[in-house]
């Protein structure tokens, strides 16, 4: 039983390590695309911690990503550049100069705090209302960051941000959030939240404080999203508020749904498959050689193919590629199925 449970963690970690290892063997733009896939997967796993366990759709998690990205970016952009191009920043932000790791910690802390503050009123809501409320959060956050030049670049691009999200950091970042997500979902609190997901009335009558459990998951998830925002900023080397907005919101949600919304394994598989396919098609639009064959797709093919594949998965496998289940223990006897998430 312990081995089977451990496999639910080891499986995703092995997959991520394999992707990281293979990516480290590539070069040029393909190498960058691999790192990008790992960072996007970090966002999806963060999203899963709340959405997967609570069953409440959140359109607002990219708010924590953008906060983390801008915080990490402002904290690490060279002071002389900030003084010239971001001179409207609060003085303490102009002076703030952190190392790479410190900036990631800051991003995670701010993401968690922001999620907690937002979650206090919103986590009382359920279903569609909660989804719309979280959508309002991303709209408000985007407008604040776009217009308030005292806390960020406003409409400008923030940068140059030190590009420190290499393979090691991207892989460790993703493994870290997977471990935290797994550790959380094994706790009693996460079980209570999943019970509330399945039957709120029954859970409540059993003494589960749904609001408290949702708030806890939302905060943890927000911290992880903040961390992933920091990794994203250090991957791209520049950030604009538009980069971390609705497109990222919908594509990460789509990745989670395609993988299987109810399981950590589904989040990892969905993110790596869709982000990987997206990256591959982007390369193919600029011509790419695969085992001696040149693949050269017309511009725009990527979005069409991605849309078709995502629609096909949802049509033919509505519960996602993994069926919303954790990775099965490969040595179990026939007929036994590991419990779902």
């Amino acid at each position, binding site marked *: 039983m312990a081995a089977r449970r451990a496999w639910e963690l080891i499986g995703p970690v092995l997959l991520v390590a394999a992707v990281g290892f293979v990516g480290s063997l590539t070069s040029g733009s393909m190498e960058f695309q691999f790192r990008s896939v790992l960072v996007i997967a970090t966002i999806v796993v963060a999203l899963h911690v709340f959405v997967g366990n609570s069953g409440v759709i959140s359109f607002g998690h990219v708010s924590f990503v953008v906060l983390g990205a801008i915080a990490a970016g402002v904290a690490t952009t*060279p002071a002389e550049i900030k003084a010239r191009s971001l001179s409207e920043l609060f003085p303490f932000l102009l002076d703030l100069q952190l190392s790479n790791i410190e900036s990631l910690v800051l991003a995670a802390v701010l993401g968690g705090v922001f999620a907690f503050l937002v979650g206090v009123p919103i986590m009382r809501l359920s279903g569609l209302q909660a989804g719309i409320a979280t959508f309002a959060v991303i709209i408000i956050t985007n407008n604040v960051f776009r217009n308030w030049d005292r806390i960020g670049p406003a409409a400008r691009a923030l940068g140059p941000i030190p590009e420190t999200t290499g393979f090691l950091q991207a892989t460790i970042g993703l493994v870290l959030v997977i471990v935290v997500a797994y550790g959380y979902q094994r706790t009693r609190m996460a079980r209570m939240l999943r019970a509330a997901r399945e039957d709120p009335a029954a859970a409540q009558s059993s003494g589960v404080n749904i609001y408290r459990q949702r708030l806890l998951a939302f905060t943890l998830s927000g911290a992880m999203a903040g961390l992933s925002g920091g990794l994203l900023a250090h991957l791209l080397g520049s950030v604009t508020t538009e980069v971390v907005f609705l497109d990222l919101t919908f594509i990460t949600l789509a990745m989670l749904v395609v993988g299987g919304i109810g399981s950590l394994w589904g989040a990892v598989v969905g993110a790596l498959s869709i982000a990987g396919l997206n990256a591959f098609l982007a390369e193919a639009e600029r011509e790419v050689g695969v*085992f001696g064959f040149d693949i050269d797709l017309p511009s725009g093919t990527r979005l069409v193919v991605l849309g078709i594949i995502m629609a096909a998965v949802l049509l033919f496998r509505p519960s996602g590629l993994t069926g919303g289940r954790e990775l099965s223990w490969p040595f179990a006897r026939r007929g036994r199925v590991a419990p779902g998430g």
Partner: protein
Amino acid sequence: MIRRFRFLALFAALALIAAACGGDDSSDTTAAPSATTTTAAPATTTTAGGSTDTTAAPTDTTPIIIGAAVDLSQNMAPFNTPANRAAEIMVERINDAGGVLGGRPLELRTLDATVEPDVVKATAIDLIDQGAEILMVTCDFDFAFPAIQEAIQANILTVAPCIGTDAMGPNNLGEEGRIAFSFGDQAQDEGAVLAEFARDQGWETAVVVKNNLLIYFQDVVDAFAVRFEEAGGTVVATEEFTGFDGTIGSVVTAVANEEKDVIAISSGFDDLPAFVFGLRALGDDTPIVCSWACDGTFWYQEGEPLNEFYYNTKVSLFGDDPNQDVQDFLAELTARGGPPATAAWLGGAQAVQAIAEAIEATGGTDAAAMAAYLEGFDNKSLIMGEVTLNADNHTVFGRPHRIMQVTDSMPAFLELRTATSPADIR
């Protein structure tokens, strides 16, 4: 067991494919794929053009690759596509005249970078890996930033055909940004020339409409407001919105309700026609002045004649530009691919010409040396006009703008106008 490992097997296969994709960074430059446009004269030792010396064969005929990581399929395509086509023509002209450095041809290698930052960055990496020694980037700084950073990290000169802000260069990018330039006109210069034009028409009061989507849009109207008031006018109201935010309708209503002699705007994409034609639909015929962002007629609405509309641009696209060289170049551009959507092409042509001159003057493609040469441009005469750059201004300023007047949806050249100075908005 096999079934249970199906996902691992699938992803292992995908990983292997991806690894195979990344193995070869070298690209066959002779076989230009459809997504890649390569323009270069064949490497030859025959000197063409003005030189008649055929005895001194050049020792090096390898092409100098100018990579173009530009958006050719998304929002910036109306600006980048004509700029890139003009750059291709200029490359051919230079190569027909013998190339640079005694016979080395230029090669423009173009990849569609879109405006998505990860794709922009990956495209720049691809081009640099393919041997690009100079990188041309998309006509908006925010969209181009990831590519600019790659060029700076690779220490190669990076040039935008038509970025219209002062973000290129050391003032915004630090000392490392000294190798970044734009051949667009500074927003401060555009705003100033529009304001001076407006005051010369006798317009006393203005409403400015600021689109916060792009810093370029903001800078133009800020510059207009500063210069308009410096010239004795009054800005009676400033209306703001953010492109695509769905509030343009209320902006139209608010502007229509103001008493004003002129409206100044810099905008684009879907909000521009929504504003202009929305205002006219309310019966407000107040003159509107707009920056180069309003160039071209592709955004006009059919069946709704546009009048009392003025904008500044780099060159006229409508057969009446006062510079014959411009008209000739435009005719060639049109013959080879249809009429350009905007005058952005001027920047593409001039950027390539400036790059070629910098290569000749410095004897190679050393980024720092070329940057120092470009910073020395003081009314430098390029094919279609004078260009000024200096150590603090890596985006062109002080160039004569074409003021265009739109009557019944037909733009026509009205006058040449140079700003007395760029407006100070920082």
